[in-house]
């Protein structure tokens, strides 16, 4: 390979040439070794990258075939579906993490979209509902007026049917309103608990199977004629009890009775609704318990056909501070639902029972009217005594004189006197008289 120079053929040169030759050889050898090592390293690296690529592909395949379908199912209401995690085999460069972040991102986007759609749906439904409710209320009012106007039993029978259907419709509409987060409906003045319970009874299909017990706990210091529900709780309580009654009549034989009672409870009263049915199926009981504890019910929980009872009860209970349970067995064999009504939602109303006594007797004997009750300003449990709905109590004529007025002005004068004596708070009329 090296050639002897023909011009300088010295022995030192020859030795130097040998050194150079061996150095070059060693360099070349080193180069060869280094190259071989590099090649080996690169081969390893390529193998490593190929393995990672395989992992990555497997991860993507897992994402496509397993995780995303599971995620989709769970986001579409399959709450029991478990979304599997990443495979996570030999991953150093965070590919699995970025995929995990991607899944999280998808979840978030879907959640936000759903929330947006849900809100928009609620707004639309509330708008639709308001229109329907307005018409339904108008119709119901018209039927009420007709019942007053037509004095004919056959017409009344027909009007009963329409009225009954209207009451049920009104209940359903108010239930939907609660679900959509809209206003529950008309505000009523403080009302007797007994009337609230019977009002609830009016609003279900099988109202004739329901018996509302006339007994109220004495422990509150007032009888059934006085125990009232405060203004803001009247409609919610009517709706809660009506939905429970609807459920009770639905889940018991068509001939079986449903009982509504009021029991004393600590710091309130418990309204019980008991049926003699077969009880709720376990699945239904779980659903009820879940819905009763919800403070917000997604629209897709309503189902088709819509079953809103427990969802409505749960929402109202949370909103108004009632406590409702349906898990205790009834002594009649079916379900026993209990609605706890706290003292804050109760009030004492003036006894209606005393009205006729007041009106038929001269003013001086009004004190006798309280004989039936304990007649104090507050009850034994400290309930405030409020002036409730005493309809027309002011401008009421004394009825006793009417039959006696058989022909003379004397009777009329007595009647007039009684009326004046007996209506100290006649409002505007009296005021005008006093000024004149």
């Amino acid at each position, binding site marked *: 390979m090296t050639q002897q120079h023909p011009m300088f053929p010295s022995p030192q040169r020859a030795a130097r040439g040998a050194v150079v030759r061996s150095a070059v050889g060693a360099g070349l050898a080193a180069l060869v070794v280094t190259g071989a090592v590099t090649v080996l390293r690169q081969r390893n690296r390529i193998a490593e990258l190929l393995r990672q690529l395989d992992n990555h592909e497997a991860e993507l395949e897992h994402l496509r075939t397993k995780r995303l379908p599971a995620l989709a199912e769970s986001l579409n209401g399959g709450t029991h579906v478990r979304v599997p995690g990443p495979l996570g085999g030999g991953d150093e460069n965070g590919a699995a993490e970025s995929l995990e972040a991607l899944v999280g991102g998808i979840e978030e986007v879907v959640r936000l979209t759903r929330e947006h759609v849900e809100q928009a749906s609620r707004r639309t439904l509330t708008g639709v509902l308001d229109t329907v409710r307005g018409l339904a209320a108008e119709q119901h009012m018209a039927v009420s007026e007709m019942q007053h106007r037509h004095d004919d039993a056959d*017409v009344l*029978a027909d009007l009963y049917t329409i009225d009954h259907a209207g009451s049920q419709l009104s209940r359903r509409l108010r239930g939907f309103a609660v679900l959509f987060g809209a206003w529950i409906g*008309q505000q009523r003045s403080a009302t007797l608990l007994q009337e*609230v319970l019977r009002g609830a009874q009016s609003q279900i299909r099988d109202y004739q199977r329901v018996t509302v017990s*006339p007994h109220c706990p004495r422990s509150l210091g007032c009888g059934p004629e006085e125990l009232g529900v405060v203004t803001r709780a009247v409609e919610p309580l009517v709706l809660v009890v009506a939905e429970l009654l609807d459920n009770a009549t639905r889940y018991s034989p068509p001939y079986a009775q449903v009982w509504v009672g009021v029991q004393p409870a600590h710091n309130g009263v418990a309204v019980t609704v008991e049926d003699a049915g077969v009880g709720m199926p376990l699945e239904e009981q779980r659903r009820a318990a879940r819905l009763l504890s919800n403070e917000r019910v997604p629209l897709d929980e309503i189902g088709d056909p819509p079953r809103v009872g427990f969802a409505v009860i749960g929402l109202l209970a949370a909103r108004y501070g009632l406590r409702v349970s349906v898990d205790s067995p009834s002594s009649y064999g079916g379900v026993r639902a209990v609605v706890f009504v706290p003292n804050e939602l109760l009030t004492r109303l003036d006894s209606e029972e005393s009205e006729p006594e007041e009106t038929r007797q001269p003013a001086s004997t009004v004190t006798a009217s309280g004989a039936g009750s304990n007649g104090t300003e507050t009850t034994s449990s400290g309930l405030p005594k409020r002036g409730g709905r005493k309809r027309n109590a002011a401008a009421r004529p004394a009825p006793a004189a009417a*039959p006696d007025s058989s022909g003379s002005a004397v009777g009329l004068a007595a009647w007039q006197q009684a009326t004046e004596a007996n209506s100290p708070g006649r409002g505007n009329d009296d005021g005008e008289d006093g000024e004149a």
Partner: protein
Amino acid sequence: MSPPRRRDREALVRPYLITGGRAHPTVGSLGITTLVRAAPETESLGLGPEHRRVVRLCSGGALSVAEIAARLELPASVTRVIVADLLDENRLQVLSSGREQAPDRELLQEVLDGLRALR
């Protein structure tokens, strides 16, 4: 009887519930002017709230069906069913059907004058 006035809101307890779905009174001859009064010594135990109220209202003297209806703020036809129930159970008695003798003109005039004097 006061003129029918528009109720400001729906009654919570519906008429069909009060009469248990019955629209036809068990006593057919009740007019709105029929006078009834509570039977002596009658008890209102075991009655629904409206029936009990009617017995109480009529225990102080006779009232016409129309007056009872106005007090209860119930339709006359519904009141008739309640009153007929109570007549059946002998808790109420018919005092006069209110149809036998129409009041003479003189009496009506006196009533009218009396009413005017009230204003």
